[in-house]
């Protein structure tokens, strides 16, 4: 039919700009990124094949890389754990049929509006040993007033803990998931005599588990890309305690012009993300419950 042929062409006409953008700005760079790590490249001279040498160097001769890998892994575990835990707890609280729910939700979301550089700058100044909010409060209560960016564990802890303040989107997603749980399930559980704790384990957690998985996956991908906070607050220090993979990649690519070496780091980040996602999906088979699919 003439009309349907026209329709077929039309569909492609409508998505054509996207296909161009996809090819030029996504697929080509992603493909290039997957091979560039095997080349030595400084922008000015043509790329030179070096095989696996960058990867050998990263893992055997580059303590900064190993440190940044360990920092990033620890950040993923602690910050995702803290953020998902805090968001779930807040969503549970907000789901207790509180009055003025919209207002509470807005208030808990508000800190997440300060993002990126402004957030990093705010926390940098808030942790100032003399005039920062945290030490002013600690001093008032007679507590210790440490130099938060002066020691490795404190600097790392600061950057990890501050990520809990931008937990707004996670709360919103959890809350929407909780509100979607059919009320009958709770009523049934109550008739069966289930205590609150049991209702949480037997009804809430299974019903919310797909949302939990989603938040974990997105949270891990997001945490792998940590950049502006350490750049602004500590510049990776002290003693590389907050040197993340992306910050180290940035330095190699744009400060030392070691594009191939930096691309090898990007590939490690890619494999890390892929590995985490696959692990979470596989692991989730044991605890995610999809209502309706048995």
């Amino acid at each position, binding site marked *: 039919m003439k009309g349907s042929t026209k329709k077929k062409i039309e569909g492609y006409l409508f998505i054509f700009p996207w296909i161009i953008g996809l090819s030029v700005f996504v697929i080509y760079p992603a493909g290039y990124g997957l091979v560039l790590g095997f080349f030595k490249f400084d922008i000015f001279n043509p790329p030179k094949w070096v095989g696996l040498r960058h990867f050998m160097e990263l893992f055997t001769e580059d303590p900064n890389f190993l440190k940044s890998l360990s920092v990033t892994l620890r950040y993923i575990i602690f910050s995702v754990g803290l953020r998902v835990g805090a968001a779930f707890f807040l969503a549970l609280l907000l789901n207790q049929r509180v009055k003025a729910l919209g207002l509470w939700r807005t208030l808990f979301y508000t800190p997440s509006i300060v993002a990126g550089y402004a957030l990093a700058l705010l926390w940098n100044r808030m942790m100032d040993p003399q005039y920062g909010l945290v030490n002013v409060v600690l001093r008032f209560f007679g507590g210790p007033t440490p130099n938060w960016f002066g020691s490795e564990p404190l600097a790392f802890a600061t950057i990890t803990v501050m990520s809990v303040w931008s937990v707004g989107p996670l709360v919103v997603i959890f809350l929407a998931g909780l509100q979607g749980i059919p009320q009958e399930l709770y009523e049934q559980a109550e008739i069966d005599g289930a205590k609150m704790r049991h209702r949480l384990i037997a009804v809430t957690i299974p019903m919310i588990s797909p949302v939990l998985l989603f938040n974990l996956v997105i949270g891990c991908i997001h945490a792998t890309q940590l950049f502006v906070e350490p750049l602004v607050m500590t510049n990776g220090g002290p003693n590389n305690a907050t040197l993340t993979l992306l910050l180290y990649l940035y330095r190699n690519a744009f400060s030392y012009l070691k594009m191939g070496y930096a691309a090898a780091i990007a590939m490690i980040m*890619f494999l890390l993300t892929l590995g985490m*996602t696959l692990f979470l999906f596989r692991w989730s088979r044991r605890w995610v419950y999809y209502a309706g699919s048995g």
Partner: protein
Amino acid sequence: MVRGRPVGLRVRSAVWRVVVYLLLLVLVTVALLPLLWMVSTSLKPGFLEAYSLSLLPSKVTWSNYPDTWNRVPFPGPMANTIFITALALFGSLVSASITGYAFARLRFPGREVWFAILIMTMLIPPAIMIIPQYLLFNWLRWIDSYKPLIVPWFFGGGAFRIFLFRQFIKSIPEELDQAAEIDGCSTFRIFAQIIVPLMMPAVATVAVLGFMDFWNDFFAPFIYLNNVDKDTIVLRLFRIWSDAEGYMREELHTVMAGNVLVTLPAFIIFFIAQKRFIQGIVTTGIKG
């Protein structure tokens, strides 16, 4: 129903409600404290006053704001940021809505495959693309121009935005466009005259979320812009107040005034359009 319950349960439930509200109150205070401190410090007459616990400035010093505005100075970088945000936002709204429309309504061979590709691109870690994209823009001689920050958004507008538009357009009853089609309307006219007016809630959602992304973007301006005249406002603040340039403690109050100024547009938009905003997060989150 309540009458039938044992008294004990009712008491515990009242206690429980008090506990819930107390917890919420404590947590919301902790959550908002950094923001309150930011605003309060920005209004204090000098950095020394930050030494006191009081969040109330001894004298509310509005002049910190014009001081910061002139010292940074804000106008140039602000104009640059507005320019980039407006064009990137426009490009991604137009492009993502057209693409989303095609995925929601038009039937063409391979649509499901392309849609699967779209979903997969959301999962590509951006790190793998940073260097090749830089090299591509370098080859195009686009470095130190706004093109890398704007042009790509006209070609698709971002997978999440396409997805959001597709979901929304799918929820619009199809009878409307079928009737228009019988009347001989072209596909583009159906999109422009029937779908576009009906999808305004989705446009608002994408615009609000997109504004935050473009306005706050640090990484792309940071690697693509070198010339100080081209600074976005966030990049300018970074250049003058990052630790590399020396940590100026005596400027604490002006630094915080700058921080308030740079986040103010996002706050205004959030409070005006928070319903759309939250809905957008839920759509891309839950249904994603």
